[in-house]
C-alpha cells in the first residue's frame, strides 16, 4: 500500500493512553509549539526591530538630504533669477543717470541705448521714456507704443511710488507675455520721468530651463496671486493659475511636501524673490528623489524575508527533529516500563503457579498412596475382590488424582520456564501443545477448532523455552481475540531450511485493515485502547522473536483472517544481558 507522504510528525497526534508511571512525561505538541515560538521570537523579533530602526534612520536621513538638496537648488536659482532682474534694473539705472532727459527724448539716442543694452545684457526688447503724466514720450522697439498713456497702469503707479519696479509677466497692449522693469528718475526741478524696458520672457524662461532639476522635476515662477510667470511642466503655460494655493510668505528658502493633483507625493521648494512679484518654485517627484533609497530598502527587505524564511525553516526542522527524538525516547521508556512490568508479572504468576502446584501435589500424592493402598489391600486380601463397586470408586479416585496431577504438572512445567531464561533443547510440538493446554478450556467453551500440523521429523530446537512459550501464547491469544465463537485456529510448523523452522498461526477472524498492517508491531499501536488494550502485545512478541534471532511476518485479509508467521533458527544465537523477558497480552 502506498501511504500518502505526510509531513506531520508522529508526536503530533500523540494521545496519552497510559496512566500512572507509564504516563508520558511531556506534552509534545506544547513543547514543540513553545520551542518554535520562543526561538522564532528571540531570533526574528530583534531582526525585525533592527530592520525597522534602520528603515526609520535612513528614511530620516534621506528626507533631510532631499530637503537640503532642494533648498540649495531653490536658493541658487533664486540668486540667478534675482541677479538677472537686478542686473537689468541696474543697467537702466545707469542709463538714466548717464543720460539727460533731453538726450533720452531723442529716439536715435534711445535706439542706440537699446542696441547697447541688447548687446551687453540681452533680453531687452524695447525701451521707452514716460513722463510724469504717464504718457510715453519716446519709444524704441518692435511695437507701435509711442504716446500710450500708462498713468492708470499699476506698474506706473508703483514705480512712481517706489522708484523702481519689476512687473509681473503680462500681455499688455501688445498681447505678448512680457515683463517690464521701470526706473524713476527725479529731476532737479522736482519733476520726474520713468524709463521702462520690456524684458523678453523667452530669455527669462530659458534662464530657468537651464537649471538642473532632474528627470521629472519642474521649476517655474509664479506671482503672489499664484499666476504662472514661466511655463510649468505640471501646471500649464504662462499666465495660468496654479491649482495649489500660493505658498505662505517666507524670507528664506523653504521646502514643503505635498501631493500633486494626481496624488503623487511632491517635494516643493520655494522662495520669495525680494523686491519682485515672483515666487520661485521647484517641484520634484518624491519617488524619484528617494529612488536609490527605495531600491536599497527593497534589497534589504528581500534579504530580511529570505533570512526569516530560512530561520523559520531551520527552527521548524530542528524543533520537529528534537521533539520527535524526545517522543521516540519517551515511547521507548514507557514501552520498557511496560515490558519490565509484564516480565515481573509473568514471573510472579510463575512463582504463584509453582507454589500452588507444589502445595497441591503433596496432599495429592498422599491421596494417591492412600487410595492405592486401599486398592492394594483389596487386591492382596482378596476379600473385596468381588465388590466391583468399591473397585470402581477407588479407580475413580485414582483417575481424578491423575487428572489433577496432569494439571499441576502442566502448571509447574509452564512456571518453571517463566522465571529463568536459558537455552534448552525442546520439541516444538510439545511446546505448542503445552501452550494450547493452557487455553484448552477457552477453546472448548468458545468451540474453537484447533488444528495442529507439526511434522514428526522436525528437529529439536535449542532455544529459550519461556520466550517461545510467550510468543506462541501471545499469538494464539491474539487470534482468539480476533475470532468469533466457532472459529478455526490452525497452527503449523515446517522445516524452512537447514537452519530454520517456520511456525504459522492462522485464524479466520476479523483480519487487520491493510493500512494498519505495517503498524501492528509498533509499540502503542492499538485499535482496542477503549477496551483496555495497551498496544504492546505484538510489539513485545516482535521483540521476543528478535531476541530468539528470528523474525515475524503478518499477512491479513479484512474479514477473512490473519496469518502470523515466525521464522526461528534451530539454535538460538546466544547473547547476554537480556533485560526484558517480555509479556503476554492482547493486540
Amino acid at each position, binding site marked *: 500500500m502506498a501511504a500518502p507522504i505526510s509531513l506531520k510528525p508522529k508526536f503530533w497526534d500523540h494521545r496519552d493512553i497510559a496512566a500512572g508511571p507509564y504516563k508520558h512525561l511531556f506534552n509534545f505538541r506544547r513543547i514543540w509549539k513553545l520551542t518554535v515560538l520562543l526561538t522564532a521570537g528571540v531570533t526574528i523579533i530583534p531582526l525585525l526591530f533592527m530592520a525597522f530602526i534602520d528603515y526609520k534612520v535612513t528614511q530620516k536621513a534621506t528626507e533631510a538630504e532631499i530637503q537640503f538638496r532642494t533648498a540649495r537648488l531653490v536658493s541658487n536659482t533664486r540668486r540667478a533669477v534675482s541677479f538677472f532682474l537686478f542686473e537689468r534694473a541696474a543697467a537702466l539705472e545707469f542709463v538714466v543717470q548717464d543720460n539727460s532727459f533731453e538726450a533720452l527724448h531723442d529716439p536715435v539716442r534711445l535706439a542706440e541705448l537699446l542696441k547697447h543694452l541688447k548687446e551687453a545684457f540681452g533680453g531687452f526688447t524695447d525701451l521707452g521714456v514716460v513722463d510724469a503724466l504717464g504718457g510715453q514720450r519716446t519709444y524704441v522697439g518692435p511695437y507701435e507704443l509711442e504716446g500710450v498713456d500708462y498713468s492708470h497702469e499699476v506698474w506706473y503707479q508703483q514705480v512712481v511710488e517706489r522708484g523702481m519696479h519689476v512687473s509681473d509677466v503680462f500681455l499688455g497692449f501688445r498681447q505678448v507675455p512680457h515683463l517690464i522693469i521701470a526706473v524713476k528718475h527725479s529731476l532737479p526741478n522736482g519733476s520726474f520721468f520713468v524709463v521702462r524696458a520690456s524684458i523678453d520672457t523667452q530669455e527669462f524662461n530659458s534662464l530657468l530651463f537651464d537649471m538642473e532639476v532632474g528627470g521629472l522635476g519642474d521649476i517655474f515662477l509664479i506671482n503672489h496671486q499664484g499666476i504662472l510667470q514661466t511655463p510649468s511642466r505640471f501646471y500649464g503655460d504662462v499666465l495660468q493659475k496654479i491649482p495649489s494655493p500660493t505658498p505662505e510668505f517666507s524670507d528664506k528658502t523653504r521646502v514643503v511636501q505635498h501631493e500633486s493633483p494626481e496624488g503623487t507625493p511632491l517635494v516643493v521648494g520655494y522662495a520669495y524673490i525680494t523686491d519682485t512679484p515672483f515666487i520661485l518654485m521647484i517641484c520634484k517627484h518624491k519617488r524619484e528623489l528617494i529612488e536609490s533609497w527605495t531600491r536599497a530598502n527593497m534589497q534589504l527587505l528581500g534579504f530580511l524575508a529570505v533570512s526569516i524564511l530560512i530561520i523559520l525553516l531551520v527552527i521548524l526542522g530542528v524543533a520537529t527533529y528534537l521533539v520527535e527524538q524526545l517522543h521516540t525516547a519517551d515511547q521507548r521508556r514507557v514501552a520498557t516500563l511496560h515490558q519490565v512490568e509484564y516480565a515481573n508479572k509473568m514471573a510472579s504468576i510463575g512463582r504463584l503457579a509453582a507454589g500452588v502446584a*507444589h502445595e497441591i501435589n503433596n496432599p495429592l500424592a498422599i491421596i494417591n498412596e492412600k487410595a492405592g493402598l486401599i486398592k492394594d489391600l483389596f487386591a492382596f486380601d482378596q476379600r473385596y475382590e468381588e465388590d466391583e463397586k468399591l473397585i470402581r470408586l477407588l479407580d475413580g479416585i485414582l483417575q481424578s488424582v491423575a487428572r489433577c496431577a496432569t494439571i499441576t504438572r502442566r502448571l509447574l512445567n509452564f512456571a518453571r520456564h517463566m522465571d529463568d531464561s536459558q537455552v534448552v533443547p525442546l520439541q516444538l510440538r510439545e511446546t505448542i501443545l503445552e501452550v494450547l493446554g493452557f487455553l484448552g478450556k477457552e477453546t472448548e467453551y468458545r468451540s474453537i477448532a484447533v488444528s495442529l500440523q507439526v511434522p514428526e521429523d522436525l528437529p529439536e530446537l535449542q532455544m529459550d523455552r519461556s520466550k517461545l512459550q510467550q510468543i506462541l501464547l501471545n499469538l494464539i491469544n491474539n487470534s482468539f481475540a480476533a475470532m468469533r465463537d466457532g472459529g478455526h485456529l490452525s497452527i503449523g510448523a515446517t522445516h524452512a531450511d537447514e537452519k530454520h523452522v517456520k511456525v504459522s498461526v492462522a485464524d479466520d477472524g476479523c483480519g487487520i485493515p491493510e493500512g494498519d498492517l505495517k503498524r501492528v508491531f509498533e509499540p502503542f499501536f492499538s485499535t482496542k485502547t477503549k477496551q483496555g488494550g495497551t498496544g504492546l502485545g505484538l510489539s513485545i512478541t516482535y521483540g521476543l522473536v528478535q531476541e530468539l534471532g528470528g523474525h515475524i511476518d503478518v499477512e491479513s485479509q479484512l474479514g477473512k483472517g490473519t496469518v502470523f508467521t515466525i521464522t526461528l533458527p534451530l539454535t538460538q544465537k546466544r547473547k547476554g544481558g537480556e533485560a526484558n523477558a517480555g509479556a503476554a497480552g492482547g493486540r
Partner: protein
Amino acid sequence: MRVLLVDDEEELVSTLAERLNMRGIEADWATKVEDAISLVGETSYDIAVLDIKLPKMSGLQLKKKLEDLRPKMKFIFMTGHGSEADFRTGAAEAGEAFYLVKPVGIEILVEKMQEVMQSEGKRS
C-alpha cells in the same frame, strides 16, 4: 531389595512403604534427615527415594551425606516442586529418568527402582 523412603509427609511415606512391602520390596521410611542418616548407618539399603525439599536440609545435600556412608547406594528423587533449577540439578544428580514429580504411580516407582538397580556400575 531394601529401600529407604525420606519425605517430611509421614502419611505419604508410611503408606508408600506399606504398599512397597506388599509388593515384596523391603521399605523403611523416615520423615527427618537425622532419622534417615541413622537408619542408613544401621542398615544397608539398595535405594533411597528422597524428597528434594526436606526440613533443615535439601534432598541433594542429604544424598551427599548418605553417599559418604554408603557409596554403593542408588537414589531416586521425588518432589512436588518443579522449578527449572531443581529439575536440572536433580536430573544431573540422579539422571533425568530418576527425577519424579509427585504424585507418582506405584507401578512407575517400582519400575524406576528396578531400572536403577540394573544400571549398577554406571553411576556411583
